[in-house]
Protein backbone atom coordinates (compact mmCIF):
# COMPACT_ATOMS: atom_id res chain seq x y z
CA UNK A 1 0.00 0.00 0.00
CA UNK A 2 1.16 3.51 -0.76
CA UNK A 3 -0.43 6.87 0.00
CA UNK A 4 -0.89 9.51 -2.71
CA UNK A 5 -2.56 12.87 -2.95
CA UNK A 6 -4.94 12.97 -5.90
CA UNK A 7 -6.05 16.24 -7.42
CA UNK A 8 -8.74 16.72 -10.06
CA UNK A 9 -9.56 19.57 -12.45
CA UNK A 10 -12.35 20.76 -14.73
CA UNK A 11 -15.09 18.23 -15.48
CA UNK A 12 -13.09 15.41 -13.90
CA UNK A 13 -13.29 17.36 -10.63
CA UNK A 14 -16.98 18.15 -11.16
CA UNK A 15 -17.97 14.54 -11.92
CA UNK A 16 -15.96 13.03 -9.07
CA UNK A 17 -17.43 15.73 -6.86
CA UNK A 18 -14.24 16.82 -5.10
CA UNK A 19 -11.05 18.68 -5.98
CA UNK A 20 -8.63 16.49 -4.08
CA UNK A 21 -8.32 13.50 -1.82
CA UNK A 22 -5.72 11.25 -0.28
CA UNK A 23 -5.95 7.54 -1.12
CA UNK A 24 -4.21 4.35 -0.14
CA UNK A 25 -3.37 2.44 -3.31
CA UNK A 26 -3.09 -1.36 -3.54
CA UNK A 27 0.37 -2.65 -4.43
CA UNK A 28 -0.79 -3.79 -7.89
CA UNK A 29 -1.50 -0.20 -8.96
CA UNK A 30 1.77 0.44 -10.78
CA UNK A 31 0.99 2.81 -13.65
CA UNK A 32 -1.36 5.73 -14.31
CA UNK A 33 -3.47 3.30 -16.33
CA UNK A 34 -3.72 1.01 -13.30
CA UNK A 35 -4.70 3.99 -11.16
CA UNK A 36 -7.52 4.97 -13.54
CA UNK A 37 -8.82 1.39 -13.57
CA UNK A 38 -8.64 1.26 -9.76
CA UNK A 39 -10.50 4.58 -9.33
CA UNK A 40 -13.30 3.35 -11.57
CA UNK A 41 -14.01 0.60 -9.02
CA UNK A 42 -14.64 3.21 -6.29
CA UNK A 43 -18.07 4.34 -7.40
CA UNK A 44 -20.36 5.67 -10.11
CA UNK A 45 -18.96 9.21 -9.84
CA UNK A 46 -15.48 7.90 -10.69
CA UNK A 47 -16.86 5.74 -13.48
CA UNK A 48 -18.60 8.77 -14.97
CA UNK A 49 -15.52 11.02 -14.67
CA UNK A 50 -13.11 8.49 -16.14
CA UNK A 51 -15.47 6.80 -18.61
CA UNK A 52 -13.51 7.90 -21.70
CA UNK A 53 -10.23 6.86 -20.18
CA UNK A 54 -8.15 7.71 -23.26
CA UNK A 55 -8.85 11.42 -23.08
CA UNK A 56 -7.85 11.73 -19.42
CA UNK A 57 -4.51 13.46 -18.93
CA UNK A 58 -2.29 12.94 -15.90
CA UNK A 59 0.55 14.70 -14.13
CA UNK A 60 2.84 13.33 -11.44
CA UNK A 61 4.39 15.91 -9.13
CA UNK A 62 3.18 18.59 -11.59
CA UNK A 63 4.76 17.09 -14.72
CA UNK A 64 2.83 15.56 -17.62
CA UNK A 65 3.00 11.74 -17.79
CA UNK A 66 1.55 9.05 -20.04
CA UNK A 67 -0.88 6.33 -18.96
CA UNK A 68 1.91 3.77 -19.11
CA UNK A 69 4.23 5.68 -16.79
CA UNK A 70 4.84 4.28 -13.27
CA UNK A 71 3.48 6.16 -10.28
CA UNK A 72 6.21 5.05 -7.90
CA UNK A 73 7.48 8.03 -5.92
CA UNK A 74 4.48 10.20 -6.69
CA UNK A 75 3.56 12.68 -3.95
CA UNK A 76 0.82 14.28 -6.03
CA UNK A 77 -1.06 12.85 -8.99
CA UNK A 78 -3.37 15.12 -10.99
CA UNK A 79 -6.08 13.95 -13.39
CA UNK A 80 -7.77 16.30 -15.86
CA UNK A 81 -9.27 16.65 -19.35
CA UNK A 82 -7.29 17.98 -22.33
CA UNK A 83 -6.25 21.55 -21.62
CA UNK A 84 -8.06 24.53 -23.15
CA UNK A 85 -6.06 27.55 -22.02
CA UNK A 86 -4.43 30.22 -24.10
Amino acid sequence: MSTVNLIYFSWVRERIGKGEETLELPADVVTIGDLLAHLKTLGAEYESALEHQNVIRAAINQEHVDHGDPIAGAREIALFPPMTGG
Partner: protein
Amino acid sequence: MTAPITVRVQRDDFDLAAEVAALTCGRADIGAIVSFSGLCRDEAGALNALELEHYPGMADAEISRICHEAVERFGLQAATAIHRFGRIEPGKNIVLVVTASPHRQAAFDGANFIMDFLKTAAPFWKKEHRADGSAGEWVSAKDADDAARDRWTLES
Protein backbone atom coordinates in the same frame (compact mmCIF):
# COMPACT_ATOMS: atom_id res chain seq x y z
CA MET B 1 24.12 35.73 -20.90
CA THR B 2 20.83 33.94 -20.44
CA ALA B 3 17.76 35.58 -21.93
CA PRO B 4 15.41 37.01 -19.30
CA ILE B 5 12.16 35.05 -19.07
CA THR B 6 9.12 36.43 -17.25
CA VAL B 7 6.22 34.11 -16.46
CA ARG B 8 3.18 35.01 -14.41
CA VAL B 9 -0.13 33.29 -13.69
CA GLN B 10 -2.49 35.84 -12.20
CA ARG B 11 -6.09 36.85 -11.70
CA ASP B 12 -5.54 40.50 -12.60
CA ASP B 13 -5.32 41.98 -16.08
CA PHE B 14 -1.92 42.85 -17.58
CA ASP B 15 -0.59 45.95 -19.33
CA LEU B 16 0.85 45.22 -22.78
CA ALA B 17 2.91 48.42 -22.95
CA ALA B 18 4.39 47.91 -19.47
CA GLU B 19 5.35 44.30 -20.28
CA VAL B 20 7.02 45.30 -23.56
CA ALA B 21 8.87 48.15 -21.81
CA ALA B 22 10.07 45.79 -19.05
CA LEU B 23 11.26 43.28 -21.62
CA THR B 24 13.20 45.76 -23.76
CA CYS B 25 14.43 47.66 -20.71
CA GLY B 26 16.43 50.21 -22.70
CA ARG B 27 18.40 47.57 -24.61
CA ALA B 28 19.65 48.65 -28.04
CA ASP B 29 20.38 45.16 -29.41
CA ILE B 30 16.76 44.12 -29.96
CA GLY B 31 15.53 44.40 -33.54
CA ALA B 32 12.10 42.80 -33.34
CA ILE B 33 9.39 42.45 -30.71
CA VAL B 34 6.30 40.35 -31.31
CA SER B 35 3.37 40.33 -28.93
CA PHE B 36 0.37 38.05 -28.91
CA SER B 37 -2.74 38.90 -26.91
CA GLY B 38 -5.45 36.28 -26.59
CA LEU B 39 -8.87 37.68 -25.71
CA CYS B 40 -12.16 36.27 -24.50
CA ARG B 41 -14.25 36.31 -27.66
CA ASP B 42 -18.02 36.37 -28.06
CA GLU B 43 -19.42 36.64 -31.56
CA ALA B 44 -23.10 36.06 -31.00
CA GLY B 45 -23.67 37.80 -27.67
CA ALA B 46 -24.31 34.37 -26.13
CA LEU B 47 -21.44 34.47 -23.64
CA ASN B 48 -21.42 36.28 -20.30
CA ALA B 49 -17.90 35.27 -19.36
CA LEU B 50 -15.33 32.49 -19.34
CA GLU B 51 -14.20 30.95 -16.07
CA LEU B 52 -10.58 29.85 -16.26
CA GLU B 53 -9.53 27.08 -13.90
CA HIS B 54 -5.82 26.29 -13.54
CA TYR B 55 -3.43 23.99 -11.74
CA PRO B 56 -1.45 26.31 -9.46
CA GLY B 57 2.27 25.68 -9.54
CA MET B 58 2.18 23.39 -12.55
CA ALA B 59 0.72 26.18 -14.72
CA ASP B 60 3.72 28.42 -13.99
CA ALA B 61 6.16 25.52 -14.37
CA GLU B 62 4.79 24.41 -17.76
CA ILE B 63 4.73 27.93 -19.19
CA SER B 64 8.29 28.52 -17.97
CA ARG B 65 9.42 25.28 -19.57
CA ILE B 66 7.79 26.26 -22.89
CA CYS B 67 9.37 29.73 -22.79
CA HIS B 68 12.83 28.30 -22.10
CA GLU B 69 12.44 25.90 -25.00
CA ALA B 70 11.40 28.76 -27.30
CA VAL B 71 14.33 30.94 -26.19
CA GLU B 72 16.78 28.14 -26.92
CA ARG B 73 15.19 27.00 -30.18
CA PHE B 74 14.77 30.44 -31.76
CA GLY B 75 17.63 32.31 -30.08
CA LEU B 76 15.28 34.78 -28.43
CA GLN B 77 16.72 37.69 -26.45
CA ALA B 78 13.78 37.72 -24.03
CA ALA B 79 10.34 36.19 -23.53
CA THR B 80 7.34 37.07 -21.40
CA ALA B 81 4.20 34.99 -20.89
CA ILE B 82 1.29 35.93 -18.65
CA HIS B 83 -1.85 33.82 -18.28
CA ARG B 84 -4.90 34.93 -16.32
CA PHE B 85 -7.31 32.74 -14.38
CA GLY B 86 -10.75 33.34 -12.86
CA ARG B 87 -13.72 35.04 -14.50
CA ILE B 88 -12.94 36.86 -17.77
CA GLU B 89 -15.55 38.73 -19.80
CA PRO B 90 -15.76 39.09 -23.60
CA GLY B 91 -13.27 41.63 -24.94
CA LYS B 92 -10.93 41.14 -21.96
CA ASN B 93 -7.41 39.70 -22.02
CA ILE B 94 -6.72 36.03 -21.29
CA VAL B 95 -3.09 35.57 -22.24
CA LEU B 96 -0.08 37.63 -23.31
CA VAL B 97 3.13 36.43 -24.96
CA VAL B 98 5.97 38.78 -25.89
CA THR B 99 9.21 37.75 -27.60
CA ALA B 100 12.30 39.74 -28.59
CA SER B 101 15.07 38.86 -31.02
CA PRO B 102 17.56 40.55 -33.34
CA HIS B 103 15.54 39.60 -36.44
CA ARG B 104 11.84 39.44 -37.13
CA GLN B 105 11.22 35.81 -38.07
CA ALA B 106 12.63 34.40 -34.82
CA ALA B 107 10.40 36.74 -32.80
CA PHE B 108 7.34 35.68 -34.84
CA ASP B 109 8.19 31.98 -34.62
CA GLY B 110 9.02 32.17 -30.93
CA ALA B 111 5.68 33.75 -30.00
CA ASN B 112 3.78 31.38 -32.28
CA PHE B 113 5.58 28.35 -30.78
CA ILE B 114 4.91 29.47 -27.20
CA MET B 115 1.20 29.93 -27.96
CA ASP B 116 0.87 26.52 -29.63
CA PHE B 117 2.41 24.70 -26.68
CA LEU B 118 0.73 26.88 -24.09
CA LYS B 119 -2.65 25.90 -25.58
CA THR B 120 -1.94 22.19 -25.49
CA ALA B 121 0.34 21.75 -22.47
CA ALA B 122 -0.34 24.46 -19.88
CA PRO B 123 -2.93 23.23 -17.34
CA PHE B 124 -5.83 25.64 -17.86
CA TRP B 125 -9.48 24.84 -18.54
CA LYS B 126 -12.18 27.18 -19.77
CA LYS B 127 -15.84 27.00 -18.76
CA GLU B 128 -18.54 29.11 -20.38
CA HIS B 129 -21.02 31.22 -18.45
CA ARG B 130 -23.86 31.76 -20.89
CA ALA B 131 -25.87 34.96 -21.25
CA ASP B 132 -29.15 33.03 -21.08
CA GLY B 133 -28.25 31.70 -17.63
CA SER B 134 -28.12 28.07 -18.79
CA ALA B 135 -25.51 25.72 -17.38
CA GLY B 136 -22.13 26.52 -18.88
CA GLU B 137 -20.16 23.97 -20.85
CA TRP B 138 -16.47 23.20 -20.50
CA VAL B 139 -14.76 24.29 -23.72
CA SER B 140 -13.60 21.27 -25.73
CA ALA B 141 -9.99 20.89 -26.79
CA LYS B 142 -9.54 21.30 -30.53
CA ASP B 143 -7.75 18.86 -32.82
CA ALA B 144 -6.53 21.93 -34.72
CA ASP B 145 -4.56 22.98 -31.63
CA ASP B 146 -2.81 19.62 -31.47
CA ALA B 147 -2.04 19.88 -35.19
CA ALA B 148 -0.65 23.40 -34.71
CA ARG B 149 1.61 22.10 -31.93
CA ASP B 150 2.76 19.09 -33.92
CA ARG B 151 3.98 21.12 -36.90
CA TRP B 152 6.94 22.26 -34.76
CA THR B 153 8.14 18.65 -34.54
CA LEU B 154 7.37 17.77 -38.13
CA GLU B 155 9.25 20.78 -39.48
CA SER B 156 12.50 20.16 -37.62
